[in-house]
């Protein structure tokens, strides 16, 4: 135990004296949180939707057409831009490269009433003009369709009027930064642990530090434990910085509980083991960094650190299911943001098991000296 403490003190002292390491450990999460937070937290998920209401009587919009506009507006998903009823809206959309345009045709109010009286034997139509080459158009289309479906559903149940709350397919009460921060914590635990583990192992092997340590009574497992605890502490440092920034700049509300701390510790343990395994198969420090990049870079994008998995194509979602960082990210979100402690515990148990497995394999194959 005293050897572990001794080596941990040496590692921390070395870290504190390495100004660039300290700077990047703190600066990287700062930059990521502030940058992504600023980009996504303000505009959140609002899309531009152009609308033309042709259903007017004496220059005044009819009851049902106004209701449609109000309902769409109440979703808070759109920045609605109303076009003059007299222009050719389709031409306008093409000329001005508008991705989504909803046209409420003349006579909509009458056909809607007719549909109500005939219990749906006729329908009232609106037309959505959209540019299918833009990604936002399909999202707008799905939201508008959902609103109209819900609208129809409510009408068929005999509800006369739909208020905002009832109709809300509005964005969930969590903003992007709520989603992003736990992903960043998971990603930081991964990069810190893998890069530290890989580069230290490769460097110490090359410059002879392992050789010297092998001549002493220090046990390999003592050294590995010390370095794993070090990785956990550095991951906690990154986590702390991000949480402070999230609260200070984006007024985030989150829960920091033992589960989230255990999850980060176990993730560090697991990725330290992954780093040791990588280090075993590379010859020099440069190759080690390249190998660490090759592992971490795809993982950070495929494990839902930055974007929800549901936004990725099916085959990538399938890949995400076998990446351990996915379970770290989702576990952290579950405990810190969504308060789903059951899923968080489940993920933490999974990561603990994987962590122990990787660290045991990593320790077993890490050699200070070749026989």
């Amino acid at each position: 135990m005293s050897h572990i403490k001794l080596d941990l003190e040496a590692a921390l002292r070395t870290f504190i004296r390495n100004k660039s390491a300290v700077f990047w450990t703190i600066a990287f999460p700062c930059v990521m949180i502030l940058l992504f937070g600023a980009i996504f937290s303000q505009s959140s998920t609002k899309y531009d939707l152009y609308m033309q209401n042709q259903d007017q009587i004496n220059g005044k919009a009819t009851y049902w057409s106004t209701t449609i506009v109000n309902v769409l507006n109440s979703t808070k998903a759109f920045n609605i831009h109303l076009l003059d009823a007299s222009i050719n809206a389709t031409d306008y959309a093409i000329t001005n490269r508008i991705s989504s345009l909803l046209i409420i045709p003349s006579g909509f109010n009458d056909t809607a009433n007719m549909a109500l009286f005939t219990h749906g034997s006729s329908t009232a139509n609106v037309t959505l003009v959209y540019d299918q080459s833009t990604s936002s158009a399909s999202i707008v289309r799905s939201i508008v369709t959902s609103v109209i479906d819900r609208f129809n559903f409510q009408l068929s149940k005999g509800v006369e009027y739909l208020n905002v709350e009832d109709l809300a397919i509005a964005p969930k009460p969590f903003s992007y930064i709520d989603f992003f921060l736990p992903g960043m914590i998971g990603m930081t635990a991964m990069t810190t642990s893998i890069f530290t583990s890989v580069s230290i192992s490769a460097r110490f092997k090359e410059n002879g530090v392992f050789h010297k340590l092998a001549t002493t009574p220090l046990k390999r497992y003592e050294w590995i434990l010390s370095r794993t605890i070090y990785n956990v502490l550095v991951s906690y440092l990154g986590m702390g910085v991000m949480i402070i920034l999230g609260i200070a700049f984006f007024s985030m509300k989150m829960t920091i509980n033992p589960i989230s701390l255990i999850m980060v510790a176990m993730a560090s343990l697991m990725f330290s083991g992954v780093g040791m395994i990588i280090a075993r198969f590379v010859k020099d420090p440069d190759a080690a960094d390249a190998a660490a990049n090759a592992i971490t870079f795809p993982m950070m994008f495929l494990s839902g650190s930055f974007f929800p998995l549901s936004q990725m194509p099916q085959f990538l979602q399938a890949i995400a299911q076998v990446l351990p960082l996915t379970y770290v990210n989702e576990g952290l979100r579950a405990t810190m943001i969504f308060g789903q402690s059951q899923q968080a515990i489940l993920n933490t148990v999974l990561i603990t098991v994987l962590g122990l497995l990787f660290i045991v394999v990593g320790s077993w194959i890490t050699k200070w000296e070749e026989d």
Partner: protein
Amino acid sequence: MWGIDLNNDAAIEVEGLSKRYGDLMAVNGISFTVNKGEIFAFLGPNGAGKTTTVEMLECLRKPTGGKAYVLGYDISKDGENIKKRTGILPQDFATYDRLTVKETIQYFAGIFDSHPDIDGLIKQVDLEDKKDTLFRNLSGGLKQRLGIAVALVNDPELIFLDEPTAGLDPKARHVVWNLIEEFHKQGKTVFLTTHYMEEAETLADRVGIIHNGNIVALDTADRLISEYGKKNLLILKRTSSKAVPTIEKLGVKANFDGGDVKVPLNHAVAVSEILHELSKTNVHFDELQLKRSSLEDVFLNLTGESLGENDEI
């Protein structure tokens, strides 16, 4: 005990030790004994098997065959005891680069669970004015001195020094030599590997010459030189060929070569006799050189190869 009678005076006893890497026999069944309190040097060119041997004795590599005992402990079973009782300076000593000299010694003292006089050790290796300097900011010579201090934290009976002065400048090399002589005076046993013949000749009580994994000779440097070296050579620089018949009258052979006369000396004639004979003639010379045979000559004679010392001592 597999053919080894453990000798209480022996610090290291080796019998038929070998190490194979694939098809390469790096160490080929060598046997030798290092006595307590002596400086023993393993001399050989790079790749001769010196480091492989020393690393087997340090319990860093497993032997393919043979037996060895270090301080009475079997290297194949008692690695932990050997590590606790020996001091080791590996080739190109390296440690955590952002610890200071003092912190490095404290760290290793902690690892050995020992409580040495840290300031005393720093003084012993003459690093007092560098004790707060980070390892990464030390020169090569200072790093080796720190490595030696680290090798002493557990007050070892036996110190392994693997190429302790390789790559050092002459001044730094002499500082390290002085330290090694200090250990000798303290009664410690030193096992040294080197490819510098002068280092072995200056420091070692006994020298083992290793070539292609085999010990080709083992004795004191003087005895090795007298047995396997060339004769000492007297050189008269920038002189006349008339000196040759004058010297040969004394029964020794002399050669005139490029303005110099070279005389291989033997026991039959003393240098003073040659000079006396020359003084009777009018043969003059600008300079007199006496070239002593060295371990380099011994090595050349035994192996047909040069030691391959690239750097000047």
